[in-house]
């Protein structure tokens, strides 16, 4: 009876190790603190109505970024733990973590940073900005947007759930390759938690990708052809096309692994005809496009930033579009470079190596176009521009390392070494994260109505840059010395320790940088009156999002904009016969005063809690699947289906905002 009710759950599944107890306690404390604050300030209803049940992409975008930041700090904590262990664990000392624990930590670190931190930040920024850039008030499918976010949130909770119930996470690396990840070698619940946190959040990602693609293709404002779209929208489109093409592969592959583990099937087992190599191929068929999903939007963010802060149009717009599209297409043709050493034969290896090298071409083209945008511009060195300069400096060398790795002969020596680890971190941090940081600082006033403290922003940047350099240059060197990745211990004679210690100092700088960023938000919020953005266009921007008020009203555009060219907003600014001082916006001189604008009724999407309920049932299903609680799995499925059916009967998913109401709100705004 107990087994029927509780599946494989036992009392032993509850926390009893120092880190599971510690993590559970921290999670509980944070939860209690949040609940206390909400109760004290009487904000429960506000939270529910204004945020959690909203289908407004501007709200959902903020929620993505908040949750992604939390997950980012969790992943960062993992990183610090790894570095300290590796700096300590030489010769007689084995550090403070045993092998299995360290392996769980770097597995979790990879999955959290990729799936929950970076993808969360990106989905947040795309939600916030892309609709504004194309003149749309909402995404194509507002409910799916909410559902996608809540599935992502459910996945984020799920990947932390093992601390509370289960006590172990997957320890086979961030992609859980079989046969190590099969029941034979990983009998616990760790890999199952891995499978379901990725499946649940992956479903959310897929829905989000679908939503963004349809929105960008179908909801651009009149006059904005594809070749007039801002580059951030273009790169978001490319990235989301990659999502919808590649995430089904991840879904299918992890499903097959789960079928092996749960139903005793034999897709990837060592015996009974299973084929572990097939998993490696499939997972990297998803995995390589995934890393481009992470960096392509940042290329778009940098395009916007370089253009705006140089006061010039982006150089070579058509080239940039071609580059983004070719990177998107090429990313499907290179997956084998992740396992040259599996013995595929010279012809196959060489083909994939050459295709990998070809991706360097459009990437290089983009670099030159950015630099030429700066040529004869008037460059303002704001925090976002700092991140751009840091990005180009680091990404160039990281990319060279990548081309080196694309040569199988070199890869045979460098595969699974710390050189590889340094390479991909350079790409994702300087490519993905720096772009995200720059984008957050750049668009912060649009979302909140005030700018971030510039001084702290630049300080945080330098900490990140110096910290990154100090953390990862030793790793490049260690790779050349033959140091393998994922080691929990190494011999003194190897001579690795000094490098690891240097790297550990580097991570401390990065940690300081991250804390400075947090501090920047706190300080800026306190002094928001001084940094208020009253014009809606604090940087003298070029694209449509800067034509709205800051913060953006819930209906985004009072009147749908008209577009006749690229850099649509720049074109509306009154003719520039004299050179204005840099950074002063001309948008105050609006051609049409608000009182004479022609307002229309606006269809708005209504709030709904169904996304939360659906995700909760999916979460329950995942939990039940991990612990083999059959009745709960069925309940989860039935509940989820019931939610879908109930939603399909819902006829009140929209409401009308009348023209009169819009006019009233617009007129009431205080003009400076």
């Amino acid at each position, binding site marked *: 009876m107990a087994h029927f009710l509780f599946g494989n759950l036992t009392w032993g599944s509850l926390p009893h190790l120092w880190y599971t107890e510690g993590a559970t306690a921290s999670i509980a404390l944070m939860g209690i603190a949040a609940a206390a604050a909400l109760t004290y300030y009487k904000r429960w209803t506000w939270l529910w109505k204004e945020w959690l049940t909203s289908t407004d992409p501007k709200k959902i975008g903020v929620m993505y970024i908040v949750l992604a930041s939390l997950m980012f700090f969790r992943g960062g904590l993992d990183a610090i733990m790894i570095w300290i262990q590796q700096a300590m664990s030489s010769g007689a000392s084995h550090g403070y973590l*045993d*092998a*299995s624990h360290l*392996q769980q930590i770097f597995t979790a670190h990879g999955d959290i940073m990729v799936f929950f931190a970076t993808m969360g930040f990106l989905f947040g920024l795309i939600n916030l900005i892309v609709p504004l850039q194309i003149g749309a008030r909402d995404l194509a499918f507002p409910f799916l947007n909410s559902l996608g976010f809540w599935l992502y949130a459910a996945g984020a909770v799920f990947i932390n759930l093992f601390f509370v119930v289960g006590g172990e996470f997957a*320890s*086979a690396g961030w992609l859980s390759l079989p*046969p*190590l990840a099969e029941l034979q*070698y990983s009998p616990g619940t760790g890999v199952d938690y891995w499978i379901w946190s990725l499946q649940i959040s992956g479903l959310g990602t897929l829905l989000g990708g679908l939503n963004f693609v349809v929105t960008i293709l179908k909801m651009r404002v009149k006059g904005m052809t594809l070749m007039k779209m801002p580059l951030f929208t273009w790169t978001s489109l490319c990235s989301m096309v990659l999502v919808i093409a590649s995430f089904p592969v991840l879904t299918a592959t992890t499903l097959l692994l789960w079928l092996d583990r749960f139903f005793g099937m034999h897709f990837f087992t*060592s*015996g009974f005809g299973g084929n*572990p*190599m097939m998993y490696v191929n499939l997972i990297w068929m998803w995995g390589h496009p995934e890393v481009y999903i992470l960096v392509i939007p940042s290329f778009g963010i940098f395009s916007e930033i370089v253009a705006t802060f140089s*006061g*010039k*149009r982006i150089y070579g717009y058509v*080239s940039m579009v071609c580059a983004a599209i070719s990177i998107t297409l090429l990313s499907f043709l290179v997956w084998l470079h992740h*396992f040259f*050493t*599996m013995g*595929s034969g*010279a012809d196959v290896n*060489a083909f994939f*190596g*050459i295709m990998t*090298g*070809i991706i360097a*071409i459009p990437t*290089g*083209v983009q670099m*030159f176009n950015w*630099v030429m945008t*700066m040529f004869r*511009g*008037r*460059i303002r*060195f704001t925090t976002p521009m700092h991140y751009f*300069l840091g990005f*180009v400096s680091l990404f*160039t*060398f990281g990319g*060279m390392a990548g*081309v*080196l790795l694309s*040569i*199988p002969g*070199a890869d*045979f*020596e460098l*595969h*699974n*070494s710390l050189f590889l680890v340094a390479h991909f971190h350079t790409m994702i941090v300087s490519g993905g994260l720096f772009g995200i940081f720059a984008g957050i600082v750049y668009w912060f006033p649009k979302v909140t109505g005030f700018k971030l403290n510039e001084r702290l922003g630049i300080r945080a940047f330098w900490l990140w840059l110096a910290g990154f350099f100090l953390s990862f240059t030793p790793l490049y060197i260690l790779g050349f010395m*033959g140091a*393998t990745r994922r080691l*929990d*211990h190494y*011999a003194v004679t*190897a001579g690795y320790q000094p490098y690891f210690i240097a790297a550990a100092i580097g991570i401390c700088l990065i940690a300081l940088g991250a804390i400075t960023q947090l501090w920047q938000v706190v300080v800026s919020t306190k002094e928001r009156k001084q940094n208020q953005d009253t014009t809606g266009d604090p940087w003298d921007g070029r694209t449509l999002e800067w034509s709205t008020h800051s913060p953006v009203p819930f209906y985004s555009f009072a009147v749908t904009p008209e577009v006749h060219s690229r850099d649509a907003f720049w074109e509306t600014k009154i003719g520039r016969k004299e*050179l204005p001082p*840099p950074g002063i916006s001309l948008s105050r001189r609006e051609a049409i005063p608000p009182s004479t604008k022609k307002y229309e009724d606006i269809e708005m999407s209504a709030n709904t809690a169904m996304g939360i309920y659906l995700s909760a049932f999916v979460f329950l299903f995942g939990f039940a699947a991990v612990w083999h609680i059959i009745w709960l799995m069925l309940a989860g499925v039935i509940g989820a289906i019931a939610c879908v059916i109930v939603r399909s009967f819902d006829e009140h998913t929209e409401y009308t905002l009348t023209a009169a109401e819009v006019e009233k709100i617009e007129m009431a705004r205080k003009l400076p």
Partner: protein
Amino acid sequence: MIVTAVLLMLAVAIPLLAMLYTFAWKYRAGNPKADKTYDPERTRGVFRELIWWAIPAAVVAVIAVMNWQSTHALDPYKAIVSDNKPVTIQVVALEWKWLFIYPAQGIATVNFVEFPEATPVHFELTADAPMSSFWIPELGSQIYAMSTMQTQIDLMASSTGEYVGKDTEINGAGYAGMTFVAKSASQEDFDAWTASVKQSQNVLTMDAYNALMAPSQNNPQAFYSSFDKNLYGTILTRYMPPATSSDSMPANMEGMKM
């Protein structure tokens, strides 16, 4: 080859970075010269754009040719040509140690492998463990060792010496301790060594192998004077369907060879 590739790429990267920093300084907003040359609408130059599509393409093309040639030259499946007859050693990756079987010499070792210098060593690899990657950094490429399949690599040490060998693919808790010693010796020393191992008390019977196969970490080196003659074949076909003939090895092992 690595040096050439790096230099070629630097030939593009350094001018790029030079342009970046020069422009950043020269065209900064505070600089009065920047005001004079400010050209907000300058966005296209077909000729220029062709140049920076062409230059990276040219560099990549050169690297691609190098890539093709070196990949074929360094193919792990390519036999090393030498006057000396190759020595064949079978490698089995276990949880968390390496087993070396010398078919011709009739001995087996754990976590220690010796071979003559200036002689091609033909390694045939499989695993009775999760995917592992066999690597002697100072001698050359790594290659994966996977259960139910056989991979191979030819290595050759040009002189005598002792080298560190390791696993680079995570395969469980004992991963970091899965190191071994590879020693290349003169032909005479190698022959003497094999003779001494032949005197060892330990015999690698199937029972001994099954005990060895059990997970263990940081194994000391071990030496066996002989091994069960079906050992490697059994390991390789362990996960194959039960044989229908009385022969314990399936007639055709070709399908398992990578």
